[in-house]
């Protein structure tokens, strides 16, 4: 194992680092949980994506709390939060910002768009025109905005939480697969349980829950946590496993489009965050397999036969998981 020189970014996180991370993450989860009742798994995945430095796509029918979750997450961090309501007439410059003429200085001055914030909530992203969607997605990847030849770096940390309705809803422009690929994970909110819904009625009936929400962490700490997550150890067997999973999606007959190399990257990064959240300085196959569905499913395109047969992308990921063996540790 030591014969192959490997470039480790840093020493694995020390126990106190992971402790701090776990405590902070738990505070986040609890805080968001006061607003989103009974969705601990979804909140947890959202926190994992945040710690892994990725972007999150929330997809579900209207009214289940997508926007509430994204806003709650944003407010829990003491940083700048921006919200963009995507509509068909939204222009790219509304997102990125534009240069305006300042008569006083007789120069063009850059006015920042809505994307300049630590957490950007892109509400109903699939209601905007593809042109505008592209503008946002470019920012997500590049983490900078280029207007008139000048690049303006975005804040750090920078996380986009986009929500979208399922494609069959009226008046939507589905995200192209290349753009979906930029989101680290997609989670579906799902309807709350009957009890949770009743509790929600009692608590949220009269007040705005978001109004009471106070930040529990700050931008600096989140940036540190993201850096800590990056040092979580990934054994060669785990890398092989992640690659085997994404490779298997590329050869699955049920898929027209498999997972990209970027998907592999996202999968391992998310797995690192999950390991860190469990106080482990190393990634387990379970981290990878648990996150495979949220990280991979939204990037896959089903083949026509599979669509006719009623398959969902998540089912294909589960099939791949049951087919691909965890590689031997290699000793």
């Amino acid at each position, binding site marked *: 194992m030591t014969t192959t020189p490997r470039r480790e970014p840093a020493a694995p996180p020390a126990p106190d680092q992971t402790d701090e991370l776990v405590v902070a993450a738990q505070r986040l989860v609890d805080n968001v949980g006061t607003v989103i009742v009974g969705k601990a798994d979804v909140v947890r995945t959202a926190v994992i994506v945040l710690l892994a430095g990725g972007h999150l796509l929330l997809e579900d029918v209207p009214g289940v709390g997508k926007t509430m979750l994204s806003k709650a997450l944003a407010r829990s961090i003491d940083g700048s939060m921006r919200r963009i309501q995507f509509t068909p007439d939204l222009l790219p410059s509304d997102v990125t910002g534009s240069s305006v003429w300042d008569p006083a200085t007789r120069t063009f001055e850059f006015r920042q768009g809505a994307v300049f914030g630590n957490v950007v909530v892109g509400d109903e992203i699939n209601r905007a025109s593809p042109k505008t969607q592209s503008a946002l997605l470019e920012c997500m990847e590049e983490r900078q905005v280029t207007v008139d030849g000048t690049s303006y770096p975005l804040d750090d940390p920078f996380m986009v939480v986009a929500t979208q309705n399922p494609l069959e809803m009226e008046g939507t422009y589905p995200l192209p697969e290349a753009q979906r690929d930029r989101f680290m994970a997609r989670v579906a909110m799902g309807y709350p349980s009957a009890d949770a819904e009743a509790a929600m009625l009692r608590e949220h009936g009269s007040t705005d829950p978001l109004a009471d929400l106070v930040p529990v962490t700050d931008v600096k700490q989140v940036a540190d946590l993201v850096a800590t997550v990056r040092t979580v150890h990934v054994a060669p067997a785990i890398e092989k496993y992640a690659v085997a999973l994404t490779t298997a999606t590329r050869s699955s007959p049920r898929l027209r489009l498999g997972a990209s190399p970027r998907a592999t990257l996202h999968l391992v990064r998310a797995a690192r965050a999950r390991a860190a959240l469990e106080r482990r300085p190393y990634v387990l196959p379970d981290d990878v397999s*648990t996150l495979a*569905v949220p990280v991979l499913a939204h990037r896959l395109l089903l083949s026509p036969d599979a669509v006719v047969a009623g398959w969902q992308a998540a089912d294909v990921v589960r099939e791949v*998981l049951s087919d691909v063996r965890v590689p031997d*540790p290699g000793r």
Partner: protein
Amino acid sequence: MNASVAHTFWVGLWVWLLAVTTGAAFSPLVADSRFLLEGALGAAAVVLVGVVVRAAGGRRPVVVAAQAAVTLGWLTAAYGAGTGIAGVIPTPDTLERAGALAEATYLHAQRYAAPVPDTAALTATLAALVIVLALVIDVLAAELRWTPALGLVLLAVVMVPATLLEGRSPLLVFVLGAAAYAGLLAVTRNDDGRAWGPRVTAVGSQPRDPVDSAVGHVRASIPAVGIAIGAIAVALVVPLVTPTAGESFLDGAGSGAGSGIGTGLDNPVLDMRRNLRGQSRDVLLTMTEEKDAPRPRYVRLASMQSVGDQGWTLGDRVGAGQQLDDDLPSVPGLNPGVPTTTARYRTAVSPGFETRWLPHVYAPTAVRLEDSSGVEINRSMLDISRLPRLGSFAGASYDVEVMVARPTQADLRTAPASTLTMSSYVDLPSSTPDVVNERAEEVTAGASNAFDRALALQRWFRQDGGFKYSLAQRPGSGMETIEAFLTDDRVGYCEQFATAMAMMARSLGIPSRVSVGFLSGEPARQKGTWVFRGTAMHAWPELYFAGVGWIGFEPTPGGSGYTPPTFAEGSADPQEAPDPSADPTALPTGAASPAPGSAEADAAGDAADGGGSWVPVALVVLGLLTVALAVPAAVRTARRRRRRAAHDDPAAAAEDAWAEVRDTATDHGIGWTEGVSPRTSIAPLRARLDDDPVAREAIDTLVDAVERSRYAPVYEPADLTAVVDHLVGATAASVTRRQRLGAAVLPRSVLVPAERRVGVREEDEVLSLRE
């Protein structure tokens, strides 16, 4: 033990067992099962060669060629009678010899009904069958992986004895065969899973669309339907082409014993003809020996005393009988000085056997019959009959005490010429062909006394005269039939042999009669009990010697169970012959008779009687089974010991601890999925041991150690011995006693290679992934 070598070995063992058990289906057909021992040895050689060549990495053509070569070599060496080059390489002579053996077996099988008396040819043929079966099974199962299709072949083979026995095949043989086949199917299951049906996949991969799954189902069941149709076709066709099989329904001749009251009652000969020609397998009689009596043979119904133009008849018996009571007539002609033995048999006549004649072993001295009204015993014949109007003995049970004369040769040789009272037993009709007397004189030219003449006649029929046995011969004992039998064709069955010899004896002045009854029974399941079937019916001549009485002879040849009988014969053991110093051929006891093959046959018969031939086979099978049973447990123990040994590499120690727990769980039938993460693998065990907090903690410790050793950047070794010990104990405690026993004797972790273990927990695994 390498997993693939172990698998090869197991397949080989099951192939061998299947070949032997399939061969065992033939054992009820023959009196002696020696063929099975020989076949089992040859089959073992063939299978072993296959295992060795396969283990050495030989490819399919090499394996098959090696096995075929060993098969040929073995058959040539064992049954080629030295015709092969260096004893093992077949030559044209070997082929000729094989043809001759096959022909002899075919003729032999046609001549007798089961159980066929044993011959060398029969043993060779059946043993060869077992060996070739082993080859075929091995090639089909281990090489071509057509184990399911193999069922067709075996069915066709097993149909032959099953048909001949008309469904009376021993259940045990069938069950053993089925078990061996099931075993072979089990060990080769994963080989052909893809060829014969859809592979079992996880729930996650189940097609959602019912149409899709239905199509898959139909596609998968096509081979199964094909097998079923093929099996039915074979089951229908094989009986039609098997010699002697199914005769009863092909020619429509009913074989129900004694179905015609008139004929059955008055003339036992007709009963005999019908039963012999119909090859009736009906059980007509059951006899149980008491007081260590010898095996009942030559069980007589009646004796025919008169010979007329149309042949032998029972004659005029008016006034010759007396009411059966405690006081039976003395045995005719037996002087008090002649040694005798007594025996007692309990006899039950089957309800379907409507005989007017009471079956018994000659000579009866006491008969205990519940309803003896209208039952007469003939004073000179000592045959016992019921008056026609009073019905038959069907369904009767009775005890008969018999006295068997055991005269010395001197007694027989010095017997005076028959007295005037026996004159009616030398009468021959005027129409008797001259050939009878001419042949008799010719054959007995060298003999000086009546007994030697009788022996000469017997030898001539059995050995020197070139007679052949065939049931195809025209029945009867009429003068034309006998003339043709003695001159031209010399083909007949017991009726012709018996009547011809009796007539020839009469022409020489020796009083004679022809008795009709049963030759010998088959051993029944119960020890000391014998069942007599229609096919065992027989006719034999009896000659009278003054001072000794009626002595039976056996002119019917056949290298067969028809050993020359005598009522002097108390047992088949020649040691008990009264005068061992005399010429052994002089005494017409079976064991010393010169009749071809009879010595073997008798030995064989004795062996079969005592069940002796099964002992070595059973011992060999038992020994192999014991060794086979001990191997997996030994391998398992060795593995456990090796894993417990000290390790230099801490990671290896963790892996060994993990492997030990995995194997323990597998042995105890707790699911363990390979190729998933450690905590998913152990999930079923954790669920099983959920009530035990120490075990939960131990599992956590073990999983953590394994995960760290595999995936963490640094691994700090932990001592896992106590953890493993506790988990092994807890696992064993969580299952039933039977599972524990199974784990100790047949550990699955050794018997089933990891990649072949069906992931019964795949469902759980996928579910766990859904979280």
